[in-house]
């Protein structure tokens, strides 16, 4: 699954640790999601999308990211 988390973070000048802070997971998990090594659950994907004020489709897209 592809995602725009890295870009969205950069636009908001937000670190992985700060994003992890907000969605209550470890920084390693955010890094693995960003690099496409780990696909988040639907609740976590919703939390991330909500944090950026976007719909889930605006953050995550179907397809291989690697």
């Amino acid at each position: 699954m592809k995602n725009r988390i890295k870009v969205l973070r950069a636009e908001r000048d937000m670190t992985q640790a700060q994003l992890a802070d907000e969605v209550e997971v470890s920084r390693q998990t955010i890094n693995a999601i960003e690099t496409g090594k780990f696909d988040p659950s639907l609740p976590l994907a919703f939390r991330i999308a909500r944090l950026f004020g976007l719909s889930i489709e605006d953050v995550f897209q179907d397809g291989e990211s690697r």
Partner: protein
Amino acid sequence: METKTGKFNAKTYRNTRHLAYWTAAWVLTMAIAAFGPKLIWNLDTTVSALFIGINTLIGVGMIQANRRYLNGLDEMQRKISLEAMAIALGVGVVGGLSYGMLDIAKVVSVHAEISHLVILIGVTYLVAIVVGNLRYK
């Protein structure tokens, strides 16, 4: 001010510490229950039964601490742990039974002990956790 991840990390650290305390207590009481009969209380079966009971109760506490630890992890950490447990269980069952058969068939000279199986499962779990963490790094 403590942030949410600060809270998340603090909770994980606290759960890990509790699990370590319970595990240490379990190992210590097991050592007492195993070596005590000969070295401390001269094969008194009542004292032996008491210490085995204490060890079992602490074992139950350790299992609960392990459950709390796993439930406190985030979803990726839980996935890594689940995969590691699956590998450790598989290696333990397959490796343990093969080892037992090798002993029964007198292919190996070493007597198959349950402690060998526990070591195999423990080492396999540790290696699988490290590999899992590296894979998602």
